[in-house]
């Protein structure tokens, strides 16, 4: 029994097809779980669409699907990650995020208690970020046709006057800055994968970066590029920027911050940390003369305390991202082919 007198059995029940069927069970789930935790004046209107006034200036919009395994990981879960991920995508335009939406695809049989944990985590992340979830959607798929929970979030934000952040603005001579240690999220996730569990204190770095971005934009309004290096890590993100702007890059391996535990886990698994995902870090490109000022602004924020200048944009028609190795040689930091797989010996 999943419903008791019109109340959802959150502690013992599971998602079933009626929760997506458009009837009373679905209405009860929305009321007792989603609205109860995520409530805010716009969501509380109870309409199919959120109604709000549009601020002055340029709007940005970003959407992101979340399909992670495991759903709960050290330092976060799919709920908080869905909020942070989309807020960060909006913030990487230099924007101030205003609103979020959330679409849930639930698999039949998923425990309602776990779903509530996810929604509560999402609500906490949204509240901390000061950005409400103003509308949402719930669908249920048959058992075996999903992976527990999928969440799609969309974010809307407004860009301050005079800020023009875009990958095509990368230009030779600019400095490349990184807000902190790399690979934390990817290693935290790997450490809990079913066939790979290992003991580590590493937590995901999942965090909303718009506060840090606001400080950076205030210090250096002329920031050329902002990007959060999520899937594919720092390597993939820099290659994307290099290709978009038709430039090259040269990185200094010794300058790239990394936690010893992350480094050790990557050694063990034969992974290159440059390709490992982050969820609370950003890369910034700015004019060389602004680099120290931007670095100082970043280090003044808790999420940028370990920020570093890690390289320079170069002129290179081949768009190669290269790295001076800590060993004294040079190598290419290429695109990732497929997904990073461990080496066998």
């Amino acid at each position, binding site marked *: 029994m999943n419903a008791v007198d019109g109340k959802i059995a959150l502690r013992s029940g599971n998602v079933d097809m009626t929760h997506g069927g458009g009837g009373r069970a679905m209405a009860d789930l929305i009321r007792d779980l989603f609205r109860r935790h995520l409530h805010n004046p716009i969501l509380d209107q109870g309409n199919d669409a959120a109604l709000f006034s549009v601020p002055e200036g340029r709007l940005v919009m970003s959407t992101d699907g979340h399909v992670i395994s495991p759903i709960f990981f050290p330092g976060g879960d799919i709920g908080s990650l869905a909020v942070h991920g989309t807020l960060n995508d909006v913030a990487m335009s230099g924007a101030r995020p205003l609103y979020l939406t959330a679409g849930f695809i639930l698999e039949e049989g998923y425990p309602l208690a776990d779903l509530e944990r996810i929604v509560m985590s999402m609500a906490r992340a949204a509240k901390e970020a000061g950005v409400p979830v103003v509308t949402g959607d719930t669908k249920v798929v048959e058992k075996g046709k999903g992976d527990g929970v999928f969440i799609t979030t969309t974010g809307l934000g407004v860009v301050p006057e005079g800020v023009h952040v875009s990958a095509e603005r990368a230009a030779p001579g600019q400095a490349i800055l990184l807000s902190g240690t790399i690979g934390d999220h990817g290693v935290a996730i790997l450490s809990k994968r079913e066939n790979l569990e290992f003991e580590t204190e590493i937590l995901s770095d999942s965090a909303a970066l718009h506060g840090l971005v606001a400080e950076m934009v205030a210090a250096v309004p002329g920031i050329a590029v902002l990007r959060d290096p999520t899937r594919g890590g720092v390597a993939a993100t820099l290659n994307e920027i290099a290709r978009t702007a038709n430039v090259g890059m040269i990185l200094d391996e010794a300058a790239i911050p990394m936690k010893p535990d992350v480094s050790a886990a990557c050694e063990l698994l034969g992974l290159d940390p440059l390709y490992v995902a982050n969820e609370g870090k950003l890369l910034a490109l700015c004019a060389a003369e602004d680099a120290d000022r931007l670095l100082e602004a970043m280090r003044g924020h808790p999420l940028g305390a370990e920020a570093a200048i890690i390289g320079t944009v170069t002129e290179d028609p081949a768009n190669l991202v290269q790295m001076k190795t800590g060993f004294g040689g040079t190598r290419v930091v290429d695109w990732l082919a497929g997904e990073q*797989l*461990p080496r066998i010996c």
Partner: protein
Amino acid sequence: MKYVSEFRARDLAEKLAAQIAHEVRPDRTYHLMEFCGGHTHAIFRYGVQDLMPENVKFVHGPGCPVCVLPVRRLDDAVELAEKHGVILCTYGDMMRVPGTKQRSLIRAKADGADIRMIYSTLDALKIARENPDREVVFFAIGFETTTPPTAVAIMQAETEGLENFSVFCNHVLTPAAIGHILESPEVRDLGTVKIDGFLGPSHVSSVIGSEPYEFFAEEFAKPVVIAGFEPLDVMQSTLMLIRQINEGRAEVENEYARVVTREGNLKAQSLVSDVFELRQSFEWRGLGEVPYSALRIRDTHAALDAEKRFTVSEKKSREVKSCECPAILRGVKKPTDCKLFGTVCTPDNPMGSCMVSSEGACAAYWTYGRFRETAKEAEEAAA
């Protein structure tokens, strides 16, 4: 990081580089084959070649376990998963290797075959326990390093009575391959590669010891230095090889003494010989048939031998025409000598095995080293 950073220290690298530059003879070139993909990977990833004089050349050998598996055996694995409906457990870097008509395990998985990437043989046993109504086959590949864990899995499965578990054995042996590179009928077809000395395998040698290379060093008069996989190991071993060559010696020396002994890991060797026996001959991608170069499961453990449990069809397996992997694996050609390199064949669309594994010469060259070619082209254009 303790015991890692010490082997990547830049100041030591610079000292070693200066020592090597001081000791090489300017009137000759040193062709040193690094047999192992692990060494190839280290040379490129850390830019070791940048620290070498012009006349020290690394020749990339066939020691990448993924690269040497012949297409036919990969096709057989795909067939096991697709037609026999088994759960096929495989190490990660086998997933993307192209078989006949570019069919890889990752494509077979996308088409519905139950193929699971595992990190150890214990994972395969766990999957067999959890799926008692399914046949679970472990796709065993690799050199002497990965053979003992396969032997352990076979013993464990017998102890537990896991009747739904079997092993598709493709384990190969290093010394036979080194000998074959230097002296085989194919050498006449592909030409010989000039090799003055070998950086010997590190992890393989931790199991088999340094002794197996002694006959080979004497017979072929080539020095061998067992080298660790860290970049400083590679540089120190290079210096040791240069000294041997300069002094006209051809001995087996052990730079990786912190792990490797002359006799190796006797317990692992005993386990392996209990479970496996030599095959008379085995096909290697790039080397062709190599006598006594691979292992099969002994009859005493036949119940766990997937080759006996399942009948795979006779098939015409084919590599991509024009792919130079065979010559590259022998060190006869460089990746850039292949017409497909960087055009049709890239890590995103590999035509041959050398482009798949991060230890393959082509992938390492493409991923870490091609900027040198770009720089050279720019220099030539400017001149």
